[in-house]
């Protein structure tokens, strides 16, 4: 198990390093000088040269990559030219906000998505099943940011129950979290339903029923545990969805997180800030996937033996 753990951690590290390289490569091969684009048309040659030097663009890609990694390891992500602040500080302020939002989204996904799928899979064809399937279909087909605006319109502007934007109290968190979770709840509910339906067709379920166990006991004790592996896999994949959704949700609710930092960096053409936000986003995603992979060992005893 320890060897497996170390192997997985090294592999994840490799993926993060390659992702950073790929991002630098993409930003590099595209025509146009980021420094000149950042400064605009009025910039003088010297100004462009200074920014180029500050961003390390005067060095070859490989050198720049290695020195970037070296500095990142030492906790230095460079300075944001637009915000006039160290990038590590900007990310340090924004990351907890995004984590708060994503965590709330994950909790909602688990505690709404799984029960919805469970109820609908346990009694296929019932009104509960139809209701939950229509809800999930809506969640899949409506854009996250649109759902956010609708919720904002009714619950903030019309009813005044929640603030329109910003952070602070739990009231600020409710609407963004529901918005963010809308898509993932729908996906997880659908996955739970189909996974459960598949398991309910197995022989051991019929046996359990035949020996007189109540239907609910069979569903919860026998079927659900076995349906859990695909559910966890899908949940792990949904984490990436949640992070992408966070970028959109933060834009809707003016939530001062990583997504807004990143979109702002693109708009302002703040090269190092963009690179830094991508680095943090990607690493967080890889880390969560690693945790999901390791959690298989807890759910399925067959995996931990590998």
């Amino acid at each position, binding site marked *: 198990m320890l060897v497996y753990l170390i192997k997985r951690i090294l592999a994840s590290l490799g993926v993060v390093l390659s992702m950073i390289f790929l991002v630098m490569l*993409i*930003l590099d091969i*595209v025509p146009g000088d980021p420094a000149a684009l950042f400064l605009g048309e009025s910039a003088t040659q010297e100004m462009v040269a200074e920014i180029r030097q500050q961003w390390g663009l005067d060095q070859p890609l490989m050198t720049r990559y290695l020195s970037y990694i070296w500095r990142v390891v030492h906790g230095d992500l460079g300075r944001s030219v637009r915000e006039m602040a160290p990038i590590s500080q900007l990310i340090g302020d924004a990351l907890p906000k995004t984590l708060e939002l994503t965590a709330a989204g994950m909790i909602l996904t688990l505690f709404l998505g799984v029960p919805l799928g469970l109820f609908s899979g346990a009694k296929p064809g019932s009104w509960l099943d139809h209701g939950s399937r229509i809800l999930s279909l809506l969640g*899949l087909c409506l*854009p996250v940011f649109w759902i956010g605006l609708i919720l904002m319109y009714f619950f903030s502007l019309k009813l005044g129950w929640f603030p329109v934007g910003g952070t602070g109290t739990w009231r600020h968190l409710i609407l963004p979290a529901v918005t963010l979770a809308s898509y993932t709840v729908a996906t997880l509910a659908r996955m739970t339903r189909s996974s459960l339906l598949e398991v309910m067709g197995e022989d051991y379920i019929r046996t359990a029923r035949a020996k007189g166990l109540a239907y609910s006991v069979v569903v919860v004790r026998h079927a659900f545990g076995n349906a859990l592996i695909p559910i966890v896999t899908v949940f792990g994949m949904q984490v990436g969805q949640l992070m*992408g959704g966070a970028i*959109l949700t933060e834009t809707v609710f003016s939530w001062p997180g990583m997504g807004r930092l990143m*979109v702002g960096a693109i708009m302002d053409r703040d090269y190092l800030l963009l690179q830094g936000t991508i680095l943090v986003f990607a690493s967080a995603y890889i880390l969560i996937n690693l945790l999901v992979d390791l959690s298989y060992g807890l759910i399925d005893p067959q995996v931990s033996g590998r």
Partner: protein
Amino acid sequence: MRERPGSQAARQGKALLRSRALRRFLRNPLSVTGLIVVLVLVTVAVLAPLIAPYDPGRQHLLDKRSKPFGKYILGADQFGRDILSRLIYGARVSLVVAIFSVLIALCGGIVVGTLCGYLGGLVDAVLMRFMDLLLSFPYLLLAIVLVSALGSGSGNTLVAIGIWALPTFARMVRAAVLGIKKQEFITASRAIGAPAWRIILAHVLPNFVSPVVVYATLFMANAIMMEAALSFLGLGVQPPTPSWGEMISSGRNLLMVAPHVATIPGLAIMLAVLGFNLMGDGLRDALDPKMKVP
């Protein structure tokens, strides 16, 4: 003309299967609904100049933010532009971006997937590692990186969405090729000396057409959603080109006074996404005989 024995029977069998698949598709009300929605969408996009009541860019400054069901069926936005006309032209943008990005992903995915699956070895290892790397970006992030490097605008948006989708297609094609490669008719054609490209074109490609078609249809929905998201963030299609995502984004500031400006385009996105999803699901159920149709 060299007529291979059995090829006529094979063709008849295929035609039979196709017609049976068609019948199965048409018997399912949900897939027919999806098909109708998609057809309506395509018609609207093609005939946009004929059916749009106004020029989508024309500003009627006296009718700013006018409510729906008045002079303008769906109202007007903050510049007095007719929302219905913008929706109709927006369908064009959405569909063009979705179709071309899916085409890029499809062609690239088929080339990469077939090469990897058929050749195996080092080519497979290197290319698939690269595809895995692309897949390990969280949702939206790779497309954002690509768009921020390429620049915004509908052309760059569709390239970015195409590249974002490519690895999934490549993986699927590769898996299909690996499954086919081991079968006896491939060994047989290799034994009679057919060159690799011929085997790929004649025997391997036709065998993964149906999963790829199903996935491409389902992916149209994803591409439409992705375009809307990028345009909403201001990174995709740029104003004044009417795009559904951009319409929602610009209507955001008037949510209190004129909620219809931001909400109506969302319904258009939902309809398009729903249509392609239903059609794709229906195609999958109809083409894959192993799947039981409820």
